[in-house]
């Protein structure tokens, strides 16, 4: 006849109350779980996205704003200097431009990316056809990989011709260059609705009419050696004062401070509200239930049943409701998170592989800890109520009542 057993019998006896309270905790707990998944999910998913590219350092021009930096000038020279560093395994330039298709119908604006990356491609997953040729052997043919959305929109298949011309600057007046679609691919950093074209740096140069400004928005670097990214960042930063190197951790930390701070703050506010709601729900139910049983509790005290047993019984009642509600909250919150994730990821400009809600064991543990603390705090007032219950006057009131 433990306190837990008595609490279980009480829960069974007042079945409707228990079920309603459990459902209430489950719903609020699901929301709490979702907020916990959201608080770290986006950052962790973003970090995972960066790390999966195979490059752990990003080099940009130190001038300009964080999100609109001036391209690095003499980028090939900078890249070569970076590649010579003992802390660096490889480096690749990325040039980002806007272009327009010239297919005869309605032109489509596309994001054009030129890269010097060779070897296995990680950020782009080829779905149909082949990859870009390595080296400059096929440079004149302007080979391109196109995103699925663009391929569907323009009915492109591997081998199709895609006329492209720059959409801004003097080059926009040039005739379109007929590029050859070598493959259809998904980009890790693109949304499902993005129209993007990846080509070699020579291909990009061809689209721009042969002009080579030797610039790059980003130089991607893979570090090596025991010092890892930190040592490579230090070495790269010493090459030229007008470039700045960021490890993936730096980028994540920066986004965590700036871009993701809103999500974190929303998540903290909503998590706090859900914890308070859970507390209020359980505390109210327990307090009402205790008030309904004051005569019974006074009688138990008169019979010599100790305060401790009554207190632990109430605590167990709270733990039972919050515990079972919390357990139901996990799959329920998981389902809601999946649906919310789907909705958020369908927003324009959101990379398809970026997740807002990421299942993490830490979130489950934190969810459990928060609910356990809530259960204890919620039981505190009813316990205090019974501990200081005047036995004689309560019994008298019950009889008169």
């Amino acid at each position, binding site marked *: *006849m433990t306190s837990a057993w*008595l609490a279980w*019998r*009480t829960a*069974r*006896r*007042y079945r409707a109350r228990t079920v309603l309270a459990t459902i209430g905790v489950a719903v609020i707990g699901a929301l709490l779980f979702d907020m916990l998944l959201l608080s770290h999910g986006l950052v962790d998913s973003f970090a995972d996205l960066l790390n999966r590219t195979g490059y752990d350092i990003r080099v940009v021009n130190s001038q300009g704003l964080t999100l609109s930096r001036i391209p690095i000038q003499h980028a090939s020279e900078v890249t070569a200097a970076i590649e010579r560093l003992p802390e660096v395994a490889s480096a690749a330039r990325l040039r980002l431009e806007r272009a327009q298709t010239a297919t005869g119908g309605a032109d489509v604006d596309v994001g054009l990316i030129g890269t010097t990356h060779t070897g296995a491609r990680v950020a782009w997953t080829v779905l149909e056809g082949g990859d870009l040729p390595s080296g400059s052997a096929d440079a004149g043919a302007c080979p391109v990989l196109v995103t699925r959305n663009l391929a569907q929109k323009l009915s492109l298949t591997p081998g199709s011709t895609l006329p492209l011309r720059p959409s801004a600057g003097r080059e926009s007046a040039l005739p379109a260059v007929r590029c050859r679609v070598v493959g259809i691919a998904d980009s890790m950093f693109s949304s499902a609705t993005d129209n993007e074209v990846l080509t070699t740096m020579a291909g990009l140069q061809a689209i721009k009419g042969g002009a080579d400004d030797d610039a790059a928005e980003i130089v991607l670097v893979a570090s090596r050696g025991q010092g890892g990214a930190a040592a490579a960042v230090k070495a790269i930063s010493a090459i030229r004062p007008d470039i700045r190197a960021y490890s993936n951790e730096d980028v994540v930390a920066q986004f965590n401070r700036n871009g993701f701070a809103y999500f974190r703050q929303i998540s903290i506010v909503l998590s706090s509200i859900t914890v308070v709601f859970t507390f209020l729900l359980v505390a109210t139910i327990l307090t009402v239930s205790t008030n309904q049983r004051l*005569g*019974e509790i006074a*009688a*138990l*005290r*008169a*019979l*010599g*049943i*100790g*305060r401790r*047993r009554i207190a632990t019984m109430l605590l167990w009642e709270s733990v039972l409701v919050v515990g079972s509600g919390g357990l139901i909250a996990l799959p329920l919150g998981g389902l809601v998170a999946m649906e919310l994730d789907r909705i958020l990821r369908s927003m324009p400009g959101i990379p398809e592989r970026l997740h807002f809600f990421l299942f993490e064991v830490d979130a489950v543990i934190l969810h459990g800890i928060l609910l356990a603390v809530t259960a204890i705090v919620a039981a505190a007032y009813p316990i205090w109520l019974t501990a200081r219950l*005047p*036995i*004689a*006057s309560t*019994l*008298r009131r*019950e*009889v008169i009542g």
Partner: protein
Amino acid sequence: MTDGRPIVEARGVSRVFPMPAGPVTALRDVSLRIAAADYVAITGPSGCGKSTLLHLVGCVDAPTSGTIVFEDRDVRSLTEAERSRIRLTRIGFVFQRFFLLPMLTARENVELPQAEAGVEPAARRARTAELLEYVGLANRADHLPSQLSGGEMQRAAIARALANRPPLVVADEPTGELDEETGRHVANLFDRVHADGTAILLVTHNPVLALRASRRLAMKNGTVVS
């Protein structure tokens, strides 16, 4: 009154309740001695202080003045835990409204005080079976209070009061919620409990029940008048 050492003794006790409209004196300068195998009935009109005296003797309340001595110990000098232990093992309580735990069966209600007192499961099962047989509820042992009649609930409550073999049973209007016939059965049970050597202090409006006691005290306005 039976000779012998008193189980509990109230010496000049008064109880004043502070109220918003001013203090109310429920009990003034009352003395009472209950020895082993005493059977005392307290009668009187509502609000005369009967239940207040019973609560003081039963160690659930403390007097404003005067002394309650339970088995040679001044109750005022005891901690709440010690008073609780006395109530658990030395006093059996029977209430007008039974106060059986609604989620426990009759058997489990009788077992509960024994479990609290640390009685081993086998011993308490045997004692519970014996007590339910004693009060005539052996065949209703596994019924919830909601499945029992008023008389059966009060008999289960008496079995619970006797669970830890207390030398004193205090009962507050034990037949107050029962019809005449059922009240008589419960009164018979109290007679039997008393005959088996347990002292009884009961508060009642029921003159038939009071007449069964070996000693009757009449109270009025917080004092014992006869």
